[in-house]
């Protein structure tokens, strides 16, 4: 019973007109409320329910993901990536988000979610073009149904809602899963997206990776809500709180949310409590705003170690299996390293090719200007006897 339903408390009630029907809460908020504690499977009795096949699959992805993060971070130090926002420590969220989706579903990642895109099947090099700087999006979003990595905060969330809504209008049982960080939940687009999704009952799952910090601002300065999952209630959708380092728990919670959306049950807001072990990016100094003690505590709750422990308790972490997983991860890293160490072939004329379907007269003039500048540059270099050494254009457009 809610406060508004407490009747008979006011004096002389009969002298007062009955309140209009819109007076009471429209839905019972209780079923929408998240659990008091984040949902966990590993380390609890319920862990026994997790299928071994899923556990080994998650493990393989997590180890590969950790290695991918390490390799990408190394590539920033070598200047091959302009920046890399690492998801080290958050691999369980990344992997689970990708694995719970069917092929026809869509993933809407933020700039920190390259690993989720890779786990979904995207070529790791294509997933990194934004961060390398050769192009904003290196892939066709429709090919793997992964939206462009989104740099502004939370603005991809309404896209996910609109896409899912459109799919439902067309009669397709497609679900969109949109990822956002704790800082992103303060943005207006977060609010508008959740509100639209709930009003439209759009098949969307919002996954908030609460990693503790928005660059340096801790959660306590980000929100006064009991939890970020509690925000769901205000929109009329269920909120789920889950251990963001517990891969099977995430997989289960997100799968349920995806299935619920697919059945027409509407959106869900999932808050995964995790931790950003590395700094925000290589440009950040995390020692200014957090202690090594805190980081160490979270290292003790590492997503890979948690799964490893469950696998060894089941006797599944054989030397052969562990080696096979490590080899796979090294192979991924080596391939990424080799390919990223090649200079990308860039065509400067691409600058004008994709502004409009048909370049405007002004863009055609500017294209001609750049072409002439490049020709002059090439001639200049040729006359200095260095020929095409600096010609990285690779190709000429007709």
């Amino acid at each position, binding site marked *: 019973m809610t406060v508004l339903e407490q009747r008979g408390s006011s004096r002389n009630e009969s002298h007062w007109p009955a309140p209009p029907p819109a007076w009471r809460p429209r839905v019972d908020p209780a079923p929408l409320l998240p659990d008091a504690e984040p949902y966990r499977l590993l380390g609890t009795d319920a862990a026994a329910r997790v299928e071994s096949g899923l556990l080994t699959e998650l493990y393989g992805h997590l180890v590969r993901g950790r290695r991918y993060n390490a390799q990408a971070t190394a590539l920033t130090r070598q200047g091959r990536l302009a920046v890399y926002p690492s998801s080290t420590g958050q691999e369980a969220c990344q992997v689970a988000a990708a694995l719970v989706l069917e092929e026809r579903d869509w993933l809407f990642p933020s700039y920190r979610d390259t690993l989720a895109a890779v786990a979904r099947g995207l070529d790791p090099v294509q997933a990194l073009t934004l961060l390398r700087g050769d192009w*904003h999006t290196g892939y066709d979003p429709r090919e793997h149904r992964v939206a462009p990595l989104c740099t502004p905060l939370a603005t991809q969330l309404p896209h996910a809602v609109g896409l899912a809504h459109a799919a439902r209008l067309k009669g397709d049982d497609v679900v969109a899963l949109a990822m956002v960080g704790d800082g992103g939940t303060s943005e207006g687009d977060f609010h508008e997206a959740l509100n639209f999704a709930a009003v439209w009952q759009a098949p969307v799952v919002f996954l908030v990776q609460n990693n503790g910090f928005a660059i340096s601002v801790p959660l306590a300065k980000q929100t006064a809500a009991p939890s970020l999952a509690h925000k769901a209630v205000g929109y009329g959708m269920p909120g789920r709180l889950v251990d963001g380092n517990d891969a099977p728990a995430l997989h289960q919670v997100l799968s349920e949310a995806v299935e619920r959306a697919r059945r027409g049950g509407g959106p869900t807001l999932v808050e995964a409590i995790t931790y950003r072990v590395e700094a925000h990016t290589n440009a950040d100094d995390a020692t200014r705003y957090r202690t090594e003690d805190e980081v160490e505590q979270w290292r003790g709750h590492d997503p890979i170690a948690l799964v490893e422990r469950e696998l060894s308790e089941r006797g599944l972490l054989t030397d052969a299996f562990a080696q096979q997983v490590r080899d796979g991860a090294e192979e991924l890293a080596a391939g990424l390293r080799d390919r990223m160490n090649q200079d990308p072939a860039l065509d400067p004329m691409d600058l004008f090719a994709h502004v409009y379907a048909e370049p405007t*007269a002004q863009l055609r003039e500017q294209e001609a200007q750049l072409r002439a500048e490049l020709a002059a540059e090439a001639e200049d270099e040729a006359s200095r006897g260095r020929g095409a050494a600096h010609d990285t254009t690779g190709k000429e457009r007709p």
Partner: protein
Amino acid sequence: MTATATEAGRKPVSMAQALNRALRDAMADDPAVHVMGEDVGELGGVFRITDGLVKEFGEERCGDTPLAEAGILGTAVGMAMYGLRPVVEMQFDAFAYPGFEQLISHVARMRNRTRGAMPLPLTIRVPYGGGIGGVEHHSDSSEAYYLATPGLQVVTPATVADAYGLLRAAIASDDPVAFLEPKRLYWSRADWSPDAPAPVAPLGRAEIRRPGSGATLITYGPSLPVCMEAAEAATAEGWDLEVVDLRSLQPFDDATVCASVRRTGRAVVVHEASGFGGPGGEIAARVTERCFHYLEAPVLRVAGFDIPYPPPMLERHHLPGVDRILDTVGRLQWEADRTEGSGD
């Protein structure tokens, strides 16, 4: 609606009716076209531009959204990503600003950031401009903001035929269009047949609305009728003014504009938006760059003052009117020119 139009043939139709008809025809022709926004459903929009669409096409095709412009634009982006062609209404010029992050960061650059893999056919209808006695935040001329955003097309009709033709073209375009509807022309009427609409020039083409030889008035949207009136009045001074209606600010039709200015040797840009940082500065610069040796006088601008849009009881002082246009035309150094056509 316009059921009797066939019998009656061409009859006076308002710009609002032509826009309504354009939406209706676009929706009938292509099931991917979806209209959405605040109040576009049962109410038919506060200006009734979407009148009757929900009855004809259902809520799924013409739906009321929550009151949130970023949400309207942002969800429309996702809908376009899935193959629909959303047409969203921003209700009033200044109400669109919460949606500008979506507009600038996503709508305008989706094609570009995906290297052409993901075009974004999205039409953003914005009732704009003053002259209707609207209170604060209901009369802004926001075209400069749209114009400063590469990847967007910016279109504004000034005639009933263009209202229909340009809106159909905007919806059919594979690129996003900021479709700016001059509010005070919603009730302007013209003989026009909705059942056999006369073809209009495509997006990106300017039109000469009135030929003349002495000077060119370059204008668009709500200022076109004012310029036409000024051009008529100018004949009393012996000035023969040409009036160019841009129709589309992006793409910009340098060819038509510059051909006209080279012919007349003088140009005045007229618009309601504030002059400093306004579209007129860009247009004057383009004309000067391309026509300098043909010009008999500097390119002048008649624009709104550089003030936040004034309260309605004072707006007539802010909006460019016939007198201010004629005063400016008078400053075009006519005395220095007694040799008509020497510019050629």
